[in-house]
């Protein structure tokens, strides 16, 4: 049984190599609730460049017209900087779309599994890519 599971994981790994999810330095499964997927569209109010992961704050308009401020957990500031993302890359007031999962404790926090501008452009890609085996600074 165990062997079969391994085999499945390996095949999945091969198929998803291009988009395979990564681990963070801590387990997101501990913090966020897989039963509570969220899609948040809102305006950036702040970005905290803190360790181990940065947090984006956004104002999200609710169906009843009220506004809720959500915090979205992002990658490590270090790698974001290395990927060419700077303090100026995300202005306050920018419209972004976040897909992730809400915190298990019910607070207005979510993980940013997918964070894009409203046109679908990814926030943290572009600039130098240090992982590019064919180029980059390494």
């Amino acid at each position, binding site marked *: 049984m165990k062997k079969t599971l*391994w085999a499945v994981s390996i095949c999945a790994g091969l198929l998803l190599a291009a988009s395979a999810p990564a681990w*963070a330095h801590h387990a997101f499964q*501990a*913090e966020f609730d897989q039963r509570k997927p969220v899609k948040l569209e809102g305006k950036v109010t702040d970005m905290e460049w803190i360790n*181990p992961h940065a947090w984006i704050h956004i104002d999200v308009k609710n169906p009843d017209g009220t506004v809720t401020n959500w915090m979205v957990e992002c990658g490590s500031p*270090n*790698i974001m900087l290395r990927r060419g993302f700077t303090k100026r890359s995300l202005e306050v007031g920018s419209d972004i779309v976040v*897909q992730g999962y809400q915190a298990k404790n019910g607070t207005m926090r979510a993980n940013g599994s997918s964070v894009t501008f409203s046109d679908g452009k990814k926030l943290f890609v572009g600039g130098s890519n240090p992982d590019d085996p064919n180029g980059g600074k390494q």
Partner: protein
Amino acid sequence: MSRFLALALIAIPLAAQTAKPAAAKSAKGYTAPKTAWGDPDLQGQWPATANIPMQRPANLGERSTLTPEELKQRQSQAAQAAEGDGEEFASSETAVSINPPGYWVERGKPHAQASLVVDPPNGRIPPLTPEGQAYAKSLRNGLGPGSHFPEKVDTYEDFDFYSRCITRGLVSSMLPTLYNFGNEIVQAPGVVVIRNEMIHETRVIPLDGRPHVGKALKTYIGDSRGHWEGDTLVVETTNLNNKTGTGGGFFSDAAVLTEKFRRIAKDELSYDLTVNDPKTWTKPFTIHMPYKEDPNYKIYEYACHEGNYMMIDSLTGARALEKEGVQVKVDNNNFVRKAGEAPKK
């Protein structure tokens, strides 16, 4: 499952000739530079960018180097991953995983070295002694060590020291991980300083022959003393506490770690680390890491505890879920199960 293990499993090795692990040799005609005060100069930025699995896949046997085909395969997987990371637009069709996106990690460069462990010749960390096994099992009242994916979230101690932003331990601190590969060496007369970006370790290593601190003092990174053997910096570390280790084992009071650093070319640093802890492992083992200098690499402060909201969110989240009658198990495959329900196989 670690990324490196995943990589090791994905690699499909082909039959090839056996190669013995080669001792690091200096490039022909290369003379290592000296500092102004006459010590070999190891200073620089040495990020651990070579992507090498910790242990060798069993089917490679005693072969320490990949065949060109195997390396090519790893390179093509890496190129594919980098391509995915670099996509400018997110697909609106793709289901979003709870795991972070691929571009959150640095993937390193595939390397022909089959495993970081080079001795024993099978590239595997030797088995734990019965004492080493018993100690690991005794932690957390018999549940074993805290984990990245703990089976319960009742206390901060259910998580490992890395998740808790404390340390990765001396062995891991020198080796590749998910991101923050930086290692910096700075020297001054009588002292070598090694700084690791992940997660914010700095070792100040005296070279003046002073003895180790008293046996009663134990720390996460231990007590390091260095000396020169020709162009090689030899660092001996003792006084490690029993909270860190590697490969499932934890250092005992008998642990002695010996590191050898040698600049073998202008931009290459050979690094060997031998773990000798007869109380924990059945025999000593040696790790070899080839560092490549990157003068442009910048180490950023990784003050990991600064905003590690994970801990409070996880503990308060687990309590909230308990109120709903859901028992928390942090597992990448079986995320939650109802109270009293057995884990899915």
